[in-house]
């Protein structure tokens, strides 16, 4: 009823939906002062000098203040061969490398006054030519962002061998150039922090809106030279992260040092403009893909070059190369084909560093690969779903090691597609297209299938050689004297509902009521080490650790119960919070009372660890779980003005065993909404001088509730063979397919006019341009 699989309401929603949560902005400390950052107005320049008025000089700090005090640049190297290391001083040193880079910080009683001072800080620059477009930046002769480098490539990777001879006779050869736009991440809550020195604990305490408090602590320790035990990082309630809060921020380093230097609490709240122009950038890829297929549409090979605009610096801990290098390994998607070659380039440009956004690289490769599948279908004259079906890994091959060595754990990929085709009622859409619309709009239908690696652990990450490798995930579980349960986990729940889903897991094992189970998370002072919440890992990893810890507690409870009930251990069962042997029973609360308050009644050989345990967990295989789904959409395109309306949207998904279907669906709804943003609205363009063009939400369009249709979800549930309860990671899945599905649906609608769109977002301007080009060049 309340355990794994139950659709229970989220415990945390009572406080969050009533506005009673506590976010960073709700924290006020006595004597707290505010920070404002002075940000570079130019994309690429040498800093010649600062002009700071004397009357505010003591309230302004630059790298000239931080460096002599021993603050070190943020450094996120990768161990992959050939990786070029960037160093990012948290306030620019001698050079600025993107517009918006922090160059100074000001302190005042209020943010407005801090901004007043910031407006008086003038830097003189010697401007350098900026690298704005990644392809130009990657070309020989481009000015180097980091001058001691030989070019602007953080890392080049190669997967597979040339296979041209093997496909020389292929009847179908499709080539496409595909571009995905730079996006901003835009969680409801931006970044924010409060830093202070706790005199009693002799600790730097940083409250920060983060997904990974323990990793922020590691990074701060490296940059500030403080031992780890002198730093406590606390993530209070956090209003969405999506990757933006999965890194060490330069502002965190600056604020932490400055609060030690000034001896007073400091606060910085990122404003929306800073968010849009100065940092939270993601997703900008370029693909040159050639695919080969036989006359039925069966894929014979895929040959791709992929570029990722990684921006100016390598971010901590994920580095500047994770995104592009992942492209190389996941571009084949859920398909089985014999030949593959891919080169990837992580390109350094004069733009903000790229941040791994929910569905990192996966949304982009899905957009690229699913367009290719549709193009092959068009070339062989078949329905696109038939070509998908032909190429998907079939269930009888599971578990399946694909062409790049990804280990697909379980599932029936073709069935998700068949159900999507039936559920979207393809036949009726085709009839409708023949009849035409009364209002003249063009209707189209699109599909996309993907699989998503989540919760990948040591086996995957040790190879990247980045500052963090996830190992065993630990959770502490403690039964209180009155029979409640406290769980402590190093992950951070910022919308995922883990206070509920972890309680469900614990309830499943121990039977303690959900309302008596508390999760403490996001605090390095109170929880075991964890790399945090990212990569769709928390339910699999920390959820698995909850189950492991609770099972061990159950074993200790049974041993004490056997003694108190005068029963044999093997006869004692735990069910519904009650330990029983025959007719005799005892509650968990009574055992807890005995342990804490009447220890004289305990057996002589009782485990002295008591009713508290820290357990570590890894799945049997930590190569990652593979959730998958097929999304399908019907759209109507207004060919006069280029507007797109989503008429129907269906998700057929399989994320293994669902701990709480309502939370699963919430994740999918939110993900699809973000994916619709990627598909149709969101774009952060830069002009030739490297200036961001979308600096407010008037320019950076996000889908609102009027743009997100009612999304239908059908579940499949194929358990993972490797994880507790068979759960798979699914937090990112919803966002992966929408841009591919909607692009394919729009192209299906435009097909009658011979037009094709290939780039994101599919704006009215792009649709009308495609239609104009089609008129100019009628199909042969």
């Amino acid at each position, binding site marked *: 009823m309340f355990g794994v699989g139950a659709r229970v309401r989220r415990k945390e929603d009572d406080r969050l939906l009533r506005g009673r949560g506590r976010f960073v902005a709700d924290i006020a400390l006595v004597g707290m002062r505010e920070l404002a950052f002075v940000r570079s107005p130019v994309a690429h320049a040498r800093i010649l000098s600062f002009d700071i008025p004397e009357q505010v000089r003591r309230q302004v700090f630059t790298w000239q203040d931080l460096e002599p005090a021993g603050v070190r640049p943020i450094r996120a190297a990768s161990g992959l061969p050939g990786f070029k290391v960037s160093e990012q001083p948290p306030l620019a040193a001698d050079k600025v490398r993107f517009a918006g880079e922090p160059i100074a910080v000001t302190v005042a009683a209020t943010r407005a006054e801090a901004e007043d001072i910031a407006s008086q800080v003038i830097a003189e620059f010697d401007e350098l030519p900026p690298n704005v477009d990644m392809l130009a930046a990657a070309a020989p002769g481009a000015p180097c962002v980091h001058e001691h480098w030989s070019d602007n490539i953080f890392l080049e990777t190669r997967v597979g061998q040339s296979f041209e001879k093997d496909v020389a006779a292929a009847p179908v050869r499709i080539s496409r150039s595909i571009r995905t736009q730079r996006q901003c991440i835009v969680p409801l809550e931006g970044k924010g922090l409060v830093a202070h020195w706790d005199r009693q604990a002799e600790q730097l305490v940083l409250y920060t809106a983060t997904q990974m408090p323990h990793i922020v602590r590691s990074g701060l320790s490296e940059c500030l030279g403080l031992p780890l035990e002198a730093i406590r990082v606390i993530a209070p309630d956090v209003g969405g992260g999506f990757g933006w809060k999965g890194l060490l921020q330069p502002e965190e380093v600056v604020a932490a040092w400055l609060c030690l230097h000034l001896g007073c609490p400091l606060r910085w709240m990122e404003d929306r403009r800073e968010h849009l122009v100065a940092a939270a950038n993601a997703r900008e890829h370029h693909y040159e893909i050639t695919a080969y297929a036989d006359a039925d549409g069966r894929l014979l090979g895929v040959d791709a070059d992929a570029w990722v605009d990684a921006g100016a610096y390598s971010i901590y801990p994920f580095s500047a190369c994770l995104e592009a290098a992942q492209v190389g390994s996941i571009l084949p998607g859920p398909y089985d084909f014999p030949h593959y070659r891919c080169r990837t380039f992580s390109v350094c440009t004069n733009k903000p560093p790229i941040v791994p956004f929910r569905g990192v690289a996966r949304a982009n490769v899905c957009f690229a690969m699913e367009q290719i599948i549709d193009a092959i279908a068009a070339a062989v004259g078949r329905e696109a779903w038939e070509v998908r079906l032909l190429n998907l890994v079939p269930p009888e091959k599971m578990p399946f090691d694909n062409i790049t060595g990804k280990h697909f754990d379980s599932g029936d990929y073709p069935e998700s597609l068949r159900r999507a085709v039936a559920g979207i009622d393809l036949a009726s859409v085709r009839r409708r297209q023949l009849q035409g619309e009364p209002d003249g709009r063009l209707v189209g239908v699109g599909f996309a299938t993907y699989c998503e690696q989540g919760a990948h652990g040591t086996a995957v990450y040790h190879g990247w050689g980045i500052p963090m490798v996830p190992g065993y995930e630990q959770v502490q579980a403690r039964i209180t004297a009155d029979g409640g349960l406290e769980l402590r986990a190093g992950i951070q729940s910022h919308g995922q509902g883990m206070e509920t889903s972890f309680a469900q897991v614990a309830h499943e094992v121990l039977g303690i009521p959900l309302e008596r189970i508390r999760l403490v998370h996001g605090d390095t002072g109170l929880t075991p080490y964890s790399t945090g919440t990212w990569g769709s890992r928390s339910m699999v990893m920390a959820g698995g650790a909850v189950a492991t810890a609770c099972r061990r507690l159950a074993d200790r409870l049974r041993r004490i119960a056997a003694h108190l009930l005068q029963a044999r251990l093997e006869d004692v069962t735990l069910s519904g919070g009650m330990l029983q042997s025959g007719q005799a029973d005892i509650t968990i609360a009574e055992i807890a009372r005995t342990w804490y308050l009447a220890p004289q009644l305990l057996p002589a050989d009782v485990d002295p660890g008591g009713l508290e345990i820290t357990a570590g967990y890894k799945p049997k295989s930590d190569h990652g779980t593979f959730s998958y789904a097929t999304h399908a959409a019907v759209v109507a395109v207004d060919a006069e003005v280029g507007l797109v309306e989503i008429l129907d949207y269906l998700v057929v998904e399989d994320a293994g065993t669902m701990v709480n279907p309502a939370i699963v669906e919430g994740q999918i709804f939110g993900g699809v909404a973000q994916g619709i943003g990627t598909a149709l609205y969101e774009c952060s363009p830069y002009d030739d001088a490297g200036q961001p063009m979308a600096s407010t939400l008037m320019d950076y*369009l996000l889908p609102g509730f009027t743009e997100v249709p009612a999304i239908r979800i059908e579940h499949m549930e194929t358990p993972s063979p490797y994880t507790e309860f068979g759960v798979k990671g699914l937090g990112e899945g919803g966002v992966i397919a929408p841009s591919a599905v909607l692009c394919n649906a729009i192209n299906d609608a435009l097909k009658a006019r011979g037009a094709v769109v290939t780039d994101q977002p599919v704006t009215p301007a792009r649709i009308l341009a495609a239609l104009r080009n089609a008129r100019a060049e009628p199909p042969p």
Partner: protein
Amino acid sequence: MKPVDFDYVKPTTLAAAVDLLAQGNGSVKAVAGAQSLGPMLNLRLVQPELLVDVTAIPELLGTREEAERIVIGAGVTHARLEDGDTSERTQAVLAQIASGIAYRAVRNRGTIGGSLAHADPAADWLVCTTALGAELLLVGTAGQRTVSAAEFVVGGFETMLAPDELIVEVRVPRLSAGSRWGYYKLCRKRGEFADASAAVLVDDARGFYRCVIGATSGRPIVLDDSRPLSELAGAAAVAEALSPTALAGDAFAIQVHAAAVRRAVRAATA
């Protein structure tokens, strides 16, 4: 994103308000709903010394019906117009326009006068009051004057308001019972400013015909009233109309503005 330090007053008479505006040498801004000024203050695009809140001035707050026209106080919110008496033809059209502005939360605070004074080329009232043949009553320290909505706007975000003047009234001629109105705007998402817009009024009884293109880079463009609507709605006519603007040669802009005109005409002639 915090504004600069500024003073704030809320006068209760028109005379006091224009006196305050006159003293400021340009560093005084009038404010009503603050739906555009608010973000501009926070972005420090505007750095005034004084804000004069005009929402307590009685002359700006009422709506009245006269024989030939509806007179709307400049401080009347979009929401009040949206909720107006739609049994009367002119007010029904005004309500329809108001209901499409941004979101209800914006309409609850934003005012018709504020929108006109801000003169964002994509704003609904700019193109619609021009198409309706509205007049504006402006009051300053030197007295009052009446100007047409069409001539009031000089360019993008530029009006003929003197630094010490306020819009006090928007006077909309009553539409005939059989008049036909069409307004179309292209927004990439609901509530956003328009990429293209057009408004058409066909009032045979009054002999008033007008087609206006909005959401250009400058002031609304009144298409030549003497041509038949079907001709005005052609892409060529729209391209010609846009040729003196920054949108000249922008194939997308010409195409969507032409579509907006076509759809407004269709709505007005259907």
